[in-house]
């Protein structure tokens, strides 16, 4: 009986001890939010005016988009600079970044907003709302820009007030865009709710003075990339459809006559090219298709071999430095860890690599970026 009493006593004491030990720890008032352990990042940069921004998409619905900054002056890499300067997340799926003057425009696809930041300190200047899954932004002039949406309209952005001033109605979703003369050429990929067979694929020609669609050019399915070469020819890359509906193709378009002059059809419908880029001299095209491919604009055929082989990496973003012509390509790895960005010279030899955030998708260079 004594033993039992002893047990009961111990039991009671134990219960009270546990309750007492739990209560103080349970009273913690700090909000429980994600913590970054490594890399410990204590770098301080005065401005973000001379360098390269790597826009990390982040995982869909995880809200972990970020911007990595490569500083040209002291060769530092700084992670998640938006969060650092603004003490909040950039948002969900950062698609692209465009610079106009001293401001950066970050298109946050799944948050349906554009974050406008000052390049001086990356502090948020304004948040533009009223978009629908924004994709890319192209500047018309110092007061106006167009932003494409996964919706049947293009948003006209007033860069003075940082608001959506009007919309241009389209018949389907729009993707990439480039300025040619007084026109904006916008690729239109159709609505993804429709089967690929009926999805419209065209290049819309918009008069930037009237914001009116004045013409359109039919293209291969899913035109996702558009660049202009030194002879003012427009090159359009068509993926052929996310479901491999048709073979991917690369088109050369005469923007004056608005006709397709040349079609390069890719041989393997399962190998899908993406991220069409032009070098600063306008004579060489680059794109991703597993590896990084390089193609002179005068070439009679598509390149057979990549310039840079992936060697197990998952190349996801690509851009060419507007001053040096160097190749910047990113490895998204398995999408659930931080990526890596690589800098290659034009011959395809590795210069440098950088750790990035989650799913590095695009590069944006400051005007006076020299490296």
């Amino acid at each position, binding site marked *: 009986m004594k033993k*039992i009493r002893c*047990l*009961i006593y111990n*039991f*009671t004491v134990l*219960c009270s001890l*546990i309750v007492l030990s*739990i209560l103080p*720890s*349970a*009273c*913690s008032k700090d*909000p*429980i*939010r*994600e*913590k*970054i*352990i*490594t*890399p410990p990042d204590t770098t301080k940069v005065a401005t973000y005016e001379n360098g390269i921004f790597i826009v990390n998409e982040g995982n869909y*619905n*995880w*809200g*972990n988009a970020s911007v990595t900054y490569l500083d040209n002056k002291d060769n530092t890499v700084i992670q998640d600079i938006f969060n650092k300067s603004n003490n909040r*997340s950039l948002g*969900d799926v950062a698609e692209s970044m465009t610079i106009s003057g001293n401001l950066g425009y970050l298109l946050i696809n*799944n*948050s*349906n*907003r554009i974050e406008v930041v000052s390049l001086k300190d990356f502090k948020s200047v304004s948040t533009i*709302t009223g978009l*629908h*899954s924004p994709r890319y932004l192209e500047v018309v002039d110092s007061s106006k820009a167009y932003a494409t949406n*996964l919706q049947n309209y293009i948003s006209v952005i007033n860069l003075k007030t940082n608001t959506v001033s009007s919309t241009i109605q389209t018949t389907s979703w729009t993707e990439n865009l480039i300025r040619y003369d007084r026109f904006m050429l916008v690729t239109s990929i159709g*609505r*993804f*709710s429709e089967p690929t067979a009926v999805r419209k694929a065209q290049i819309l020609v918009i008069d930037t003075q009237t914001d009116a669609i004045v013409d359109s050019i039919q293209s291969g399915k899913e035109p996702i990339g558009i660049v202009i070469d030194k002879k003012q020819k427009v090159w359009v890359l068509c*993926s052929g459809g*996310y*479901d*491999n509906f048709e073979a991917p193709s690369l088109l050369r378009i005469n923007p004056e006559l608005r006709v397709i002059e040349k079609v390069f059809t890719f041989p393997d419908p*399962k190998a*899908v090219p*993406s991220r069409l880029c032009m070098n600063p001299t306008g004579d060489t095209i680059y794109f*991703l298709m597993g590896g990084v491919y390089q193609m002179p604009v005068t070439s009679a055929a598509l390149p057979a071999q990549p310039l840079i082989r*992936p*060697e*197990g*990496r*998952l*190349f996801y973003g690509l851009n060419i430095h507007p001053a040096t012509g160097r190749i910047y390509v990113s490895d*998204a*790895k*398995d*999408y*659930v*860890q*931080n990526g*890596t960005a690589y800098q290659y010279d034009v011959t395809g030899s590795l210069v440098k690599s950088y750790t990035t955030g989650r799913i590095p998708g695009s590069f944006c260079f400051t005007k006076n970026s020299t490296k």
Partner: protein
Amino acid sequence: MVPLSKRKSLNISLLSKYAIFLLYSSGLLCFPLFTHAQNLKDTLRLPEFEFKSNFIIDNQGFKRVKMDSTLFIPNLSADLSTILSEHSSIFIKSYGNGTLATPSFRGTSAQHTQVEWNGINLNSPMLGQMDFSQVPVAQFDGLEILYGAAGISRTSGAFGGVIDLVTMPDWNNRFKAYLAQTIASFGNYVTNFNVAAGGRSFQSHTKVNYASAVNNFPYTNDFGDVVSQQNASYTAFGLSQELFWKVKDRHLFSAKIWYSRDDRNLPPTTQDDPQKIETLKDKALRGVVEYKLVESKWNLLVRSALNDQYMKYTNNVLELESVHQFYSWINRARFSYSGVRNLTIRPGVDFVYDRVNSDEYQGIKTRTTTSLFTEINYNITPKLKSSLVLRDDLIDGKFSPLIPALGVEYRPADKINLAFSANLARNYRSPTLNELYWKNSGNPDLAPETNYSIEVGSTYNFRSRNNLFYLEASLAGYYSWIYDMIVWTPIEGSGLFIPQNVSEILARGIELGLNLNGTVWGFDVGMKNNYNFCRSTYEKASSGFDNKIGKQQLYIPVNTFNTTISIERWNYYFNYNFTFTGDRFTGVENNSLMPGYNLSNIFIGKNIHIKHFILSLQIDINNLFNLDYQSIKNRPMPGINGAFTIKLAFSGTNRP
């Protein structure tokens, strides 16, 4: 029937209830005959102390844990995810209040936990997993967790384990009923109605549940503003009807039907555009008919079930509307023979036919699975018992490799209720239909995932002779490899994700359980604790540039702990639940994490007995210390919130 020798070998200084309990859980076949002995009056009363073990080493060497009605009664308005995260060692990954909740059991993925309701697998054949927030507690009477290889006796592919939801008749009942209404914070309401009627040979049980929630709880967003959760409302309705018919204690017929309908808005993340509206509508109809025959030396069980589910997902931003419909026809036959001394043989066959009509598949897809099953229990000595389980699946005419599991159990002493167990198993998980057939990315060439596991464990329980104190403890350690794990992998240059057999996982851990019950100065005091240590790491990299080897899997905590303290007297009852969830990594390279957190919930209630009626009033306070937390990044969780429940039960006509 369980061999007599087994009963003798038990230390019967325990209450007979404990023995009955062990017997109940030791066989699929025998339980309805023993349930009349089990005191189920409490299904309509509030918790009274039942001295029975919750930790079971059974099937000779496999771990099981049982939760019973005493736990469910004060949690009638809860769902399965709440019960398990507060009271078991299974980690539940919750995307928010009343929204998607998926399990991670012993460091595995959601597809590796199978949920059964009366022998029907509830996991969708499309997704291979189950949303635990959609299973209301009010729809079942008991729950059993089969850990790791214990699940092989039910199904293949449950590397984590099986959660078995059961409903059972009370043959002593004539008529009982209750009506309960819960009014909770954020415009959440739950109504439950339950009526059971019948006699010694026939019982009918009807359960109705209805929940509606606005669920617009306030939270602090990134800008530091307090805002309301958007688009998180839901309604859920469930109706079940069960009939049990017993003839001469030998034949048992049952027919059960369960209809449920969920209409949910899926709440956005804190980073989403609040204009985004995602909805999910689910309708499910499950029916099962069953016959059991019990003879002195052999038993027979035959069961046929139909599971018909409809799901519709919409997303206004992507202009998406996608409809999925599937039927599963599930059949099971089990025979049990114990005519030879020390030996029981249980052969069986399962036949499952799945038919899916999905907007995301190209055409209708079907799958036929025939499983051959045998379980052999052999008592080497009265103290040392062994069990061999063999299963083989024949999927669409193709044999999968043999699934074997071997367990042993050793009870060293007659007077001390201590048992040691060990088991060893190989298991396979066949790809889900989504993994095989999803439009443009399904991979019909997928191989099954393979799992090798070993486990050792021990249980102990002790009861004081005056019945005033009871202790039970359980310890288990496991080591489990998963090869060829299917992961949706981005394909170079295509922008597509395609499921591939690319990953390898090593999960190992320790589970500790300690339950104490006692009567102190007239107060009935109980305490239940679970601690779980789990390292679940990636063992294969996708390339030389991938640095995830040896890193903890995403969103699986290494440490979890929960404790529940309950106190009862004068028809008042009080309950305190504490849950600690350890750090969870948000990237596979383990560079970022969601910090661990402690949550405390309490409830206090009073039962008022008025003749045959019991009126119960209960107040719940959840997140007692108003912790501002996120379990998953950018998924807000509610701060302190409460609920009030009033329940009127009628239970007067039980036979003595």
